[in-house]
């Protein structure tokens, strides 16, 4: 257990330090997310009645597609830099490498998601500064990162990785997207635990199942 935590923490700290230094992923992903938000802003009249209906969908379209862009880079950067072998050579379990990458991916996604709060507020008058939405976003992002980290590792070995990741990722995370949109809808409407809670529990259950499955499968993904 100590080895597991040690490896995961070292990889997480390294990823965050590199991202803080280069801002390679955050800058690209954030720019993409803002463009998506602006396109929706111009596509229809963002009146309160319309935003109440399509707002949650817009939020999660932006989050999911920026998430895919970010996750594509999780292992692609390691592979392109030639550093992936360095992680795989360490005397820690593959699960530990997976956990470190998962947490760093989720952290970067959460930072981008939080940075988009003011954008949604200005463009759509959509206030996401809400505890229930925060919990839904946290759980859904962990779900995305859980599946995305595994598929990012698979896709990194292929030449068509930009195409392959969404093809693998989207069908699997569809339940999380549905749960996140529905949970966001309830949170924005001001509903409490009774309404948001069931979606939150649904997403957390998905996270738990895929965390176990992805950790187990990760070992088979990276060896040639």
């Amino acid at each position, binding site marked *: 257990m*100590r*080895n597991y935590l*040690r*490896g995961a*923490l*070292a*990889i997480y*700290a*390294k990823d965050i*330090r*590199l991202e803080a*230094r*280069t801002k390679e992923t955050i800058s690209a992903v954030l720019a993409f997310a803002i463009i998506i938000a602006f396109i929706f802003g111009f596509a229809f009249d963002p009146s309160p009645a319309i935003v109440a209906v399509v707002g949650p969908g817009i939020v999660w379209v932006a989050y999911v597609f920026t998430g895919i862009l970010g996750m594509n880079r999780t292992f692609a950067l390691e592979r392109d*830099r*030639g*550093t992936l*072998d*360095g*992680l*795989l*050579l*360490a*005397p*820690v*379990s593959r699960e530990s490498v997976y956990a470190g990458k998962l947490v760093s991916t989720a952290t970067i996604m959460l930072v981008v998601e939080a940075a988009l709060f003011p954008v949604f507020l200005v463009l759509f008058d959509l206030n996401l500064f809400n505890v229930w939405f925060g919990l839904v976003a946290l759980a859904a992002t962990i779900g995305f990162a859980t599946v995305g980290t595994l598929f990012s590792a698979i896709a990194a070995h292929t030449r068509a990785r930009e195409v392959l990741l969404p093809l693998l990722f989207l069908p699997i995370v569809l339940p999380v997207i549905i749960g996140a949109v529905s949970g966001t809808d309830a949170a924005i409407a001001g509903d409490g635990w009774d309404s948001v809670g069931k979606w939150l529990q649904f997403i957390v259950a998905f996270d738990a199942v895929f965390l176990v499955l992805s950790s187990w499968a990760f070992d088979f993904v990276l*060896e*040639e």
Partner: protein
Amino acid sequence: MTTHDSNSAPDAQLALEIAGLSKAFGGTPALRDVDLQLGWGEALALFGHNGAGKSTLIRTLVTLVRPDEGTVTIAGFDRVRQAAQVRSMVGYVGHQSLLYDDMTARENLRFYAKLYGIADADRRVERSLAEVGATSFANRRMRVLSNGMVKRVAIARALLHRPRVLLLDEPEAGLDQGGLELLDSVINAVKAGGASVVMSTHSIERGFALADHVLVLDTGRVALAGATADTSVEEVRRAVLGTRQAAS
């Protein structure tokens, strides 16, 4: 230079033992029924033309490639069933440095020290940097360093956890004369510390001079194997040239 001795397998008679090792990629054989034994404190030079299987053999030993058939035991640990223990035993210098361009040499080594769970990491990092003559540029990011400097830091990374078996895949690439002399001294120091070295190289003379055993691979098969005391540079050269002509 000392070797890591805190987690070696008990009673491991041999540093490296390979029996019937085979590996294919998409139906193309890369290694075919390779047998090999290497004792502690010994060095093996691996020769062969491009595509002979040298890198695949080394990558299999460091657990980056999964063998299809055969057994590999390193320091008494089974390559498949005890991969994490094997990884703690081996140091690897490959074609790529495995270092992060946007981190300094020192930061890279500190990261790997954490990953390997090395106690007293700062002192070990400084010692490894000093051993390869990299202290003067340790605070510079990797992306601004020359190939030779990067290779020195890569060697320091491989030595950081004091491996019992050091595996070098064409380590001379990018090294100047000073770097080559440093590499020779590192290999000799590792051997003197009781650890073993496997090195693939195209330089037959250098490899032969540094090694106790030689192995020539030909399209994944062992074409020549023996102790340097029982063979000659000329014999190795003939074996390598023979396999290259056969390959072309």
